[in-house]
Structures are given as C-alpha cells and as structure tokens.
C-alpha cells in the first residue's frame, strides 16, 4: 500500500492521558514514530512541558510539535492529548479529543480527576479502544462510546447488597489491603 493512500484516511497517532505532573495515566500509540518506551516518554514530557502555560480548560487548545499536531484539553488534575500528523485536519483531531474527553466525563459521572481515572482505569482503556482502532477512528459520539465501555464496567461503587458474597469478600479484602498499604 502506498503511503499516500494511507494518509488520505484520517488517522490518529496517539491518545495520551496524563496527570498534572506529566505522569502517565493511560496512553495508546498507533504510530511507529515513537518506537521505544523512552521515545514515548520523551514525547509526553515534551508535550507536557510545552503546554503547561496554556489554559486548555474551557476550550481545547492546539499546537504543533515536531511536525505533529497536538490537540489537548485539561480538567482538574487530568490532561487529555490527541496527536496527529501535521497534514491532518485539525478539526478531525479535535473531534477525537472531544470524544475521548466527553466519554470519560460520562463514564466517571462528571467526577473527572486523577483519583477517579486511576480507579476506573479499565473503563478508560476500554474507552480508548472504542474510539480508535489501529489509528483509524472507530467512533466519535461520546454517548455511544461511553455506552459501549460502560455496559461492561464493574461498578465499584455499587452497594454491597448487589454484590455476590464472593465479590463482597473480594472487595472487603481489597479495602483491608489498601488500608494496610497506607
């Protein structure tokens, strides 16, 4: 396949979710531009430092780094990034970012912060999986995405009565270990 035809299809190079210290929460790369983990980390660090001074809280912001377009949006202590090639339609990338941002918002019930994101990492990973498949946009409607990711999520906040006995034990054991670890 000639690269020119591949480029014709809108594509996303990566989706990145960082905390407010620039540490990874969840990332997914679809391009070979960053072959190693350290190359990925360097890119994330670069993008993180370059965007710190900007205010991407009300509207998504945009910049070009190393011939890539990065669109990003921040909320609380979370930072959402979507990267595409510099030939890509900026608004398509922005719609992917919005899809990611909004579906996470729906899934975390508006309580979008680092703590909730880590506690529901499975849902967030599913969410990314539902938005992009191998760089190709799969879905951009946040409600559809959230629906697909959530129907399968285990609601950790569900009351005990709704859990089976085994699950209750598991959850209790987990709470106990957690308090020990503290």
């Amino acid at each position, binding site marked *: 396949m000639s690269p020119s*035809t591949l480029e014709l299809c809108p594509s996303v190079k990566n989706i990145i979710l960082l905390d407010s210290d620039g540490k990874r929460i969840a990332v997914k790369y679809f391009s070979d531009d960053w072959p190693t983990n350290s190359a990925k980390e360097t890119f994330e660090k670069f993008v993180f430092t370059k965007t710190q001074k900007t205010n991407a809280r009300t509207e998504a912001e945009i910049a070009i780094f190393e011939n890539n377009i990065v669109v990003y949006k921040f909320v609380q202590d979370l930072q959402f990034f979507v990267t595409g090639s510099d030939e890509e339609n900026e608004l398509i990338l922005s719609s992917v970012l919005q899809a990611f941002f909004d579906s996470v918002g729906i899934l975390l019930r508006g309580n979008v912060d680092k703590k909730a994101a880590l506690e529901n*990492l499975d849902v967030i990973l599913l969410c990314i999986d539902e938005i992009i498949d191998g760089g190709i946009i799969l879905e951009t409607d946040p409600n559809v995405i959230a629906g697909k990711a959530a129907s399968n999520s285990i609601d950790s906040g569900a009351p005990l009565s709704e859990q089976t006995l085994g699950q209750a034990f598991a959850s209790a054991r987990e709470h106990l270990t*957690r308090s020990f670890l503290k």
Partner: protein
Amino acid sequence: MAQPLAKKDDDRDDEADYSPFMGIEKGAVLQEARVFNDPQLDARRCSQVITKLLYLLNQGETFTKVEATEVFFSVTKLFQSRDLGLRRMVYLIIKELSPSADEVIIVTSSLMKDMNSKTDMYRANAIRVLCRITDGTLLTQIERYLKQAIVDKNPVVASAALVSGIHLLQTNPEIVKRWSNEVQEAVQSRAALVQFHALALLHQIRQNDRLAVSKLVTSLTRGSVRSPLAQCLLIRYTSQVIRESGNNTQSGERPFYDFLESCLRHKSEMVIFEAAKAITDLNGVTTRELTPAITVLQLFLSSSKPVLRFAAVRTLNKVAMTHPMAVTNCNIDMESLISDQNRSIATLAITTLLKTGNESSVDRLMKQITNFMSDIADEFKIVVVEAIRSLCLKFPLKYRSLMNFLSNILREEGGFDYKKAIVDSIVILIRDIPDAKESGLLHLCEFIEDCEFTYLSTQILHFIGIEGPKTLDPSKYIRYIYNRVHLENATVRASAVSTLAKFGASVDALKPRIFVLLRRCLFDSDDEVRDRATLYLSTLGGDLENDEDVRDFLFGSLDTPLANLESSLKNYVPSEVAFDIRLVPKEVKSQPLTEKKAQGKKPTGLGAPPSAPPSTVDSYERQLLSIPEFANFGKLFKSSEPVELTEAETEYAVNVVKHIFDTHVVFQYNCTNTIPEQLLEDVFVIVDASEAEEFSQVFSKPVRSLPYDSPGQTFVAFEKPEGLPTTGKFSNTLKFIVKEVDPTSGEAEDDGVEDEYQLEDLDVVAADYILRVGVSNFRNAWESIDPDSERVDEYGLGPRESLSEAVNTVINLLGMQPCEGTEVVPPNSRSHTCLLSGVFIGGVKVLVRLSFGLDGAKDVAMKLSVRSDDVSVSDAIHEIVASG
C-alpha cells in the same frame, strides 16, 4: 490556626499519594494472575488483575517471552466466564500481548465462537481481536463470517469488520479485495460511521484503478454522504482525482470544483474546513476559485474555538506564500489575532501579515509586533525574525524601520538560536541592501559590546573585518573592535586582533594607529592572541611592494579545501622537509551523495562562507581556477543553477552548470554513477555545437574515474564572441569506459568496454548573461542613468493564461531581479508594471521597466523601457525580448 492548616496539608498528601496501583510490582501481579486458573472464576477479581497487567504495560513495563506466554495461556481460560465485563478485558489484554502464531491457535476457536454469538458486543470485538492477531492462513477460514459481518445490520459489527479489513488489506490484499461487493453495499449504509469505514476500505481496494476511483467519486459526489468523516474522506479522494486528471481541462471549469465549493456550505465545520483546505491546495488555483474558501476561513478566524482559529490561520498562512493578495481581505481579523492567547496562532497571524502586508502597512505592523515579541517563546521569535528578513528584502525602502526593529530585539534577552537568527538577518540585509550597511554594522558593533556568545562575537568580528573597511568612515569601528581585546575571552580577543589587522591592511590612513593597538596586544596572556599580533605586525610592516600579498593573506579565501589540508597535515611526518601547502591537492574530493543532498539547503547568514548568493560563484570560481586551462579565462561572470540532463533515477545522473566568462563559456557536467556494480573511467561529454555556430570548443577535461555514488566533474570549454550574449543549443553525449565491479570484493575488472549515454540538450540563453542584482530604490537608480540610453518599444505577447503568467515569463526570459515586490500581480488587474534590475555581461548595470496591459480577453501587450550605462546593452535587452 495551625491545626486546620496542618489538616489541610494532610488531606492533600492523602489525595496525592492515593492510587490503586501504589507500590504495584510486576512479579506480584504475575503471581496474582494465577486466579485465572481457579476452577471457580471470580470475574471481578480477574478483571482487576487484568487491569493491573494493562496498567503495567501502559507504564512501559515489558514482559519476557515466558511471562507473556504464561499470562496469555491463563487468560485463555477466562473464556469460560460469561461475565461481559471480564470478556471485554480479555479482548483488550489479548491485543496488548500480541501472541505469536502458535499461541493464536489456542484462542481461535473461542474467538470464532464469539464471532457467531448472539451478543453484538462479542461479535464486534471478537472480529477486531481475531483480525489483529491472525495471519493469512486463518483468514480464509473466517472470511465468510467477515463478509457477513460487513453487511451486518448492527453498525458496530459492520464497522469492526470494515476497519479490520482496512488493516488486513496491507497484509492480505488478495483476500480483502474479494469483499468489494459487500463493501460496496456497506457504503450505502444508513449508519454514519459504517459509511465512513466502508468508503475508506472501498477506496483502498480500488486505489490502483484510476477509472474506478474516478467513478466512485463521481457517483458519491452526486449522492448524499451522511457522516462528516465520510464527507471529509470524499473531499480528499476528490482532490486526488482532480490532481491526477491533470490540466487537460484547461479551458472550462475544473471538474468537481463545484462539489468542493458546495462542501463549504456543509453544516459540519470539519467538512467546511476540509473543503477549504482542498481548494487552497488545488494545483494552479485561481483567485476566483480561492475566494469562497478564503471567505469561510476568514469566518473561522473569529471563532471562539482555538482549534478553528489555528486551522484557519495556518491554512491562510500557506495561501499567503503563493497568493498574498487573496489573503489581504483577512488582514483585519489577522491583526486581532496578534494578541491571541495561543501563541502559535499569534505567530502564524503575524507571519501571514508580514507576507501579505504592503509597504505602507509595514510601520504599523512593526509597532504591533514589538509588543508581541516580549511574551512569546524563542522558537516563535525565530519564525518572526525570518519573516521580517524576507519582508525587508521585499521592501528595501523600509529597511530603516525593520533594521531598527531587529536591533531592538537584538538587545533584549534571548537564547543563542534566536540571537543567531537576528544576526544572520542583519548580515543578509547588509549584504543585499547597500543603504543598510552603515547602520547595520553599527548595530552589530553595539551588540558585540554585550554579547555572551563567543561564536556570534567572532563571526561578527570577521564580518566587520570584511565590510567595515569599505565604509565611508572605517575609523569609527576601531573602538568597538579594540574594546573586545580588553574585555573578552581569548577566542574573541584573537579574532578582534585579526579584524584590526584587516582594517590596517585596507585603510592606509589607519595603519599607524592600528600598529599601536597591535603592539599592545603583544602582551596578551594568551598565546594565540600574541601570535596573531606578531604575525600581523610583521606582515603589515613589510614593504609596500608585497601589499598585494598581505591583502591576499588577510582576505583571500583559502583555495585549498580544508578537508584536504587536514588529511595532508595528518599524514605529514615531521622531518627536514617543511610542510608545503602547495603540495596539498586542490581538487575537491568527491563527496558521498547523501552529504551532497544535505548541502542542498543553502547555508545563509554567517554560517555561509564568504557571502550567501556569491558564495556558490566564489567556490565555483576557485574550483575552476584550480584547473590550469581555465586560469586565463579571466573573471567568472555568472554560474547558472544546475540544469538536469538526465531523468531522475536513471543509471547515470548528470547535471550541468554553465559558467559564463567574458570570452568563454565553460560547461561543468556533474556526473554520478548510480550503479554499484560499475566503475566508469575516462568519462567525458561529447558536445555537438552545430546549432551554436558562434561557439567553438577549445578544451575538454574528462573525469579519470567515476566510482559508484561519488560525483565527479568533467568540463568542456567554448570560446565565444567577447561580451556578447551569444546563444545556442548544444546536444550532449556522455562517453566512458565501463568496468564491472565485483560486488563482494569491490574490485573492478581490468578490462572495460566503451559505452555512451545520450543526455538531454542544453541551451545557453540570454538570461545566462545577466546577473540578478537588485537595487534598493528603483526610482533613484532609474533617474541616475542617462535618459538618452533609454530604449522603448512595444510588444504583443499574444494570448496568455493570465497577466501574472506573462510577467513571470518575461522575468525568466531576462533572468533579472524583480524590485519592490513588483513581480506579484494583484488579482483581477488589467494592467501591471514590473521593475527589474540586473547586471549585464561586462558589468553593465541595466534597469527595465515593464508595463503590461490586458487587451481583449487574454491578449497581453507589453511596453518595455530599458535604461543602461551602455546603449548597446539596452538594445541587446530588446533583442532578447524580440527573439524570445
């Protein structure tokens, strides 16, 4: 008071520290993964463990082959569970583990079962997983299911199959191509994204069949495409079809333009922008075609969304490079973007304005930029500086305010790259705009008074040494230079000493004073500084007779290539015989191709040895003079850009540079052998000058040996009538002896075969005899030339595509420098005046005023006025135009 404060801190600590993955460790998680093997599966716990595994992978942790295999095997056990959530996690981790072929077999049956399940979620995901991990052999087994899935009524399933098809097409095209009927059906789907994915796949299946793609686009542009993404895709395919259809529909409307234009009224911004971008990218787009696209982009400029503003200003910035006038309507919106919060947008807006601005708006713009510069990062500042540099070259009359701006920002804080960009720009302006020289040099002098970068200081000192003595009052620079000797580090002190010596050598009046200063340098603490001072004192102090030698030593460029000198010095063994620089080979060693390509980017500014445009001429001249046969040809007047004589990617790549001397023309053929198995020897070019009667060949210099991938030069020299712009056509044949090279040993065989290779023809045209030299003030220059030398005539240029095409044709024909930006024709104008300047062979300055008028529909008429120091040159220009 202290208590609540402490409590608050505690809270924050808790929050910051808390993470479900705190203290997570790979070994422990792998242990935990044993729960997958439990006979009584705890779905919730298994999901959590998978999440932990995914977390580790996500953080960059890697599993060894054994670990991955072990996890994979236990994960396959989880297919027993009927828990939906767990199954989703299982799919995810299988994709992440990317199992090997023999492992895939284990899950194949489970996944195939899921593919036929009643649950859509299972089906869609099983398809995606299976297609991700499978190889070709398995694909034939599941092909039937995939074809069904493509036309499945559930959009999620259909999309999953289609997207998998797009990926599989790269590895198993012959299989995927069999699905085109189903894909075609899916293109008609009511589900927006299914349509998008189907269109992408269908296009990729048919990409090599131009006619089919064209048909596809034709039918879809008429129909209704539902999803904005699919519409964007269709726009991209349409532009591709337009591009490939070429210019065969010169006359009428451009095909599909109406479709693109109609997309500008789409309800989705994404589509509007895609269409606008496609229109601006059209080959040879006309102003009329551009206008609607520019209008929507202009609306985006005032959007509340930064992404929209960015996209629009970036596109307009690109348009401004080729069609500056088309963008001027947006100038007011652009100006308000200078204060945009997003600095990328602001920088793009400024550089666009600098491209579209006219002479009268420069001052106002500079005022705005000054405020803006203080709060952007260096990388943006560099972009702005470069834009200002080209603006200044476009409007030389405005050099004063632009030069002031540059000197102001030079004084402000900034990193090395930024400062270097400013200094480079000032240097270029000094070289290209004579009027700017004095003030520019003073700005540089002031800068080195307080410059923290040794590199820049030495470069500037070197530059002052060359340019300073040529100014009206060289003495005023001495103070700045001598200050360096007191205040700087050894490197800068040494170059300051050299610069002083240059002033001493060039300006006799200053010589005694320079001597005093140089003598003081003899007591410097650094060896290099003292050595230089001693050397210069003795060379300058010598007899007047060797004045020329001194100058040569100080200003002459080293005619020996540094690389050769270096290798000779390395090989030199200290002995009775002193090192002799004359024994160092002067021929430029052939460079590997790659390096040559890298040089394609012309170094500019200080980095470029002697000076930017003349540098190539200088180096050519030196190279040519190193060949004894050319030594008596006199001064090189002009060297052309290389002209390719072979198609790209042929066996032998040859281009030619035309060197024009007063009574001679030398063709320099740069030949590259691109066949690794061949060595070429005795390579030369046979030139047939039967269509160039006034030229007679005097000399030919072959290349002895031309190994693979290292270019060599062969020369052919012709004599021609003195000082006349003699033209002619030459046909060329490359002759050589081919020797086979053993690819393993790299040694060539002893016997070679004579062979020849036909090259393209070469023309020597009138433009070869004219140097592109600009003037800063055309009117002054025009009036300073004797009006009696003026020759005026009118010409009909016949039907032309556009006025600007006619202007460019004449500019290229004459090979002269357009002045004051007059090469740009405003859109929709019926007449245009273009000002050109140049130097004719023999060093005669010549100015041309061209008035174009559109007569009737497409006929262009031109009035040509020429003034020159030599009337015969004015006539010659007319002759060129008349015969061109």
